[in-house]
């Protein structure tokens, strides 16, 4: 794949990539932006190379996930070394930007709240399957886990999410 083709693909997939970055960063919009730009820089530098073993979309989501994890590790190290400014909180800012907030509904807020209560692996799987519309097999590729493990997490996650959403319903 040439560089121009790669850029074209990135542009097409960019909105979905942002959604995935948001999921990887627990809804922190600012952090998601940093992660996304780091992931694009990694790809443009050639440090992450597409080898054609999966679809471009799956590969790209995997790169973003790895970048988000590295970003989180760096942030944790900075926090341990007291390099953060006083007054900042560790919990991600769950509030979306004003435009998104205006468009957001109660149902969306409920879904975000319920997803936040799920274990990370289940949350990631549900996002990949329902939000990114990947198959469970593709989601397993992105998360680098076996298909059987992915199925288990998917079923458990779906059940737990359903319970949480049911409990939130008045």
């Amino acid at each position, binding site marked *: 794949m040439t560089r121009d083709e790669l850029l074209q693909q990135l542009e097409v997939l960019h909105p979905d990539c942002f959604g995935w970055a948001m999921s990887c960063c627990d809804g922190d919009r600012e952090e998601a*932006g940093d992660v996304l730009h780091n992931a*694009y820089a990694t790809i443009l530098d050639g440090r992450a190379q597409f080898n054609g073993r999966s679809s471009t979309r799956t590969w790209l989501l995997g790169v973003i996930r790895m970048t988000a994890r590295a970003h989180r590790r760096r942030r944790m190290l900075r926090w341990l070394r007291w390099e953060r400014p006083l007054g900042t909180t560790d919990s991600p800012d769950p509030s*979306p930007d004003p435009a998104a907030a205006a468009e957001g509904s109660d149902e969306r807020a409920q879904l975000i709240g319920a997803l936040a209560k799920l274990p990370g692996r289940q949350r990631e799987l549900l996002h990949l399957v329902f*939000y990114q519309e990947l198959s469970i097999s593709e989601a397993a590729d992105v998360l680098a886990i076996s298909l059987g493990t992915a199925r288990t997490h998917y079923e458990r996650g779906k059940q737990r999410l359903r319970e949480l959403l049911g409990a939130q319903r008045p």
Partner: protein
Amino acid sequence: MSQSDDKELADRFAAMRRAERAAAPAFANVRARAIRRRSLRAPLAIGLAAAVAAIVIGVLASRNRVEQAPVGIDLRAGSWTGPTDFLLDTPGHWMLRDLPEIASPSSMQFDTTSYRRTSS
């Protein structure tokens, strides 16, 4: 879990997807930021490599200078006594150091008159 449950979840995720798509930063901005970072990376890496090379060369050069410098000790300036030198002091060692003097023949006085032959 029924198909309708899945459908409900899918609808909720689709609503979230629509909202987040609308709020996503423009691709051009993110790309420009990534390229800017990439363009900063190369000069930074070159500068860092040059600094490291300069430090290494400096250290090696100073080490060579130290190794090649002549030892500035004047051995004639002082005397040194080894801590085990006393072991070399054997009994009568002075005899080995001083040569006994033999008097000159003129100063020798032999009493030749008192010489007697004791045996025939």
